[in-house]
């Protein structure tokens, strides 16, 4: 058996704020294989972004991160800042949701990509320039030579996201973490970005952690999916297995909450509602986080944290009453 590229275990993140603590991530564990696309799915506040940001030390100082994240045998949660800087952007890189605010408005995009190359690969400015144009071509930006000398505001949203991706893959990273990379984009532009990510994975063998709330995007590109709820992993399975045989009521609820194109009964059908709301995370929950909203909840659910049980070869679910229907 090969060791995974990244192995996250027992990852917890707590924020100490003036209004008390927020337990944003609670003992999360997952692995990422080389060249794999892992979808990290959940709604706002479920801890999907925070868990990823914590890997690279990108959280504010109020965050308390515990646990382990082994990348090539090194626990990246516990390395000195200098070593982390060598990993960040080179071995593991990030693409953020909003390409406008993550690019520096006062430098040309070419300059910003060159900076990464010069910093990590110590290229000369001439070499960096050449490589920058190659990268812009790689992410299919037309007239790359000219675009390299433009400022972020001169590019469209889709183009800026391509620049972000070019920057992220500049040093041929082993892992690309993409946090809602298409959420701010129109669907026709999203289609192009998804194709590009698929292409990069195939050509460069980059593993991708794709953080999204959009199950359609996951269905399109992910190999394996982790569904998160209130800071915990609710369910994990290979993508086809998850969509064909979801076991956690939250996953089922989410899947049935979305209108689908070409669905029989569109026009007069109803969508699945998930009653209630996400619990406050000010205390570590000593019961199932979904209990208040769950049709399957009982005394056991309300008093114990469900362990992750194996219900299929690679299918894990954190539910005392797993099953394929919303209620039982």
């Amino acid at each position, binding site marked *: 058996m090969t060791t995974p590229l990244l192995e996250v275990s027992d990852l917890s993140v707590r924020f100490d704020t003036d209004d008390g603590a927020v337990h944003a991530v609670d003992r999360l564990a997952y692995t990422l294989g080389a060249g794999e696309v892992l979808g990290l799915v959940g709604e706002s506040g479920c801890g999907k972004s925070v868990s990823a940001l914590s890997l690279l030390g990108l959280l504010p100082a109020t965050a308390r991160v515990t646990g382990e994240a082994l990348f090539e045998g090194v626990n990246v949660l516990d390395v000195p800042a200098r070593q982390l800087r060598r990993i960040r952007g080179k071995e593991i890189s990030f693409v953020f949701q909003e390409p406008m605010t993550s690019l520096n408005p006062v430098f040309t995009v070419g300059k910003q990509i060159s900076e990464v190359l010069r910093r990590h690969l110590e290229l000369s400015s001439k070499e960096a320039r050449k490589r920058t144009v190659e990268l812009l071509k790689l992410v299919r930006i037309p007239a790359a030579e000219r675009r390299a000398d433009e400022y972020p505001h001169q590019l469209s949203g889709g183009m800026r996201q391509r620049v972000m991706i070019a920057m992220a893959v500049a040093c041929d990273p082993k892992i690309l973490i993409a946090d809602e990379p298409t959420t701010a984009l129109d669907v*026709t532009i999203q289609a192009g970005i998804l194709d590009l990510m698929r292409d990069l994975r195939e050509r460069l063998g980059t593993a991708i952690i794709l953080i999204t709330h959009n199950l359609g995007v996951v269905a*399109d590109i992910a190999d394996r999916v982790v569904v998160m709820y209130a800071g915990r992993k609710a369910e994990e399975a290979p993508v*086809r297995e998850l*969509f064909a045989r979801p076991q956690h009521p939250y996953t089922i609820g989410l899947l049935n909450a979305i209108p689908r194109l*070409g669905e029989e009964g*569109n026009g007069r059908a109803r969508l699945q509602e998930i009653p209630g709301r996400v619990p406050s995370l000010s205390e570590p929950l000593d019961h199932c986080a979904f209990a208040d909203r769950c049709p399957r909840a009982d005394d056991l659910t309300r008093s114990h944290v469900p362990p992750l049980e194996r219900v299929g070869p690679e299918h894990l679910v954190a539910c005392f009453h797993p099953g394929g229907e919303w209620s039982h």
Partner: protein
Amino acid sequence: MVALEAPVLEITDLKKHFQVGGPLSPGSGTVYAVDGVSLAIRSGEMLGLVGESGSGKTTVANCVVRLLNPTSGTIKLKGRDITQLSRRRLRPLRREMHIVFQDPYSSLNPRLTVGQIVGEPLRMHKVARGRDLDRQVEDLFDKVGLRSELRHRYPHELSGGQRQRVGLARALSVSPSLLIADEPVSALDVSVQAAILNLLQDLQQDMGFSCLFITHDLATVEFLCDRVAVMYLGKIVELATREELFAHPKHPYTQALLSAAVTPDPEVQRGRKRIVLEGDIPSPMNPPSGCPFRTRCPLEPESSPRSHEEEPQLRDVGHGHFVACHLVEPGGAGPQLVQPLVGGS
């Protein structure tokens, strides 16, 4: 069905152009945000207006409720021309149309309780006062699925979904004939979206209002709407009933849009052919000559040179299916780029 009564909303050749920049600034010019839109919404009908960012759909909505004054064209509400009415003369007609905005955080006055917010149209239009007003507000809260104790809370104390329910209650408080919903669920989480869409559907069946539903999400339109209009660069490029549009999309842009929409099913999603459009939507300050879609159209070689010279008109190609494309002839099937997704298979 013969529509004898006037449509609830009738927009004819609506244009809204914005002047930007002064005479000395380099980026000055005219933004052709909406450039000749015509559509009608019948009584009790839900019409979906779909398009990508910058297509002009929100500008249409803002012109209809006269938050913007149109550059030209006419807007008729239940047969009455409201395009030029003064604010004072428009005020009594505001009972007839209400809008729900996208952002439930910025569209509610933070200094009023949500009960006051919902009651405000009732007070403004002198529909109710005193105890009667309180009772009606309570009823409205009940109708949109909010506990009536929440009346005394302020908007910041409510979740996004609850706030959007408040927005709906406010809009429906005076029983308007027309509800304009501008991306009402886009800012909400998926599980909350479902509840709001179900609610909107229930309320529409219950109260019978007409609705102009604006969104970028095709699946939501297919779920909710009776007819669909697709906008591109300030113009409607296709307009048809839900069944017709989703089963037989004719305009290449509509087909591309449908093929690019992701569906939450890996088996279906990975087996689909996707039309990836080249380039970006052109600037509405400098729209292409002739067909607005020609710069990205995969069928451009076939429609050229006509597409450069002549703007295709939106015309009925049969069964109330309107398309603005040189390659779609009345009665003909038109170009088919991909198989549409129909019937859940």
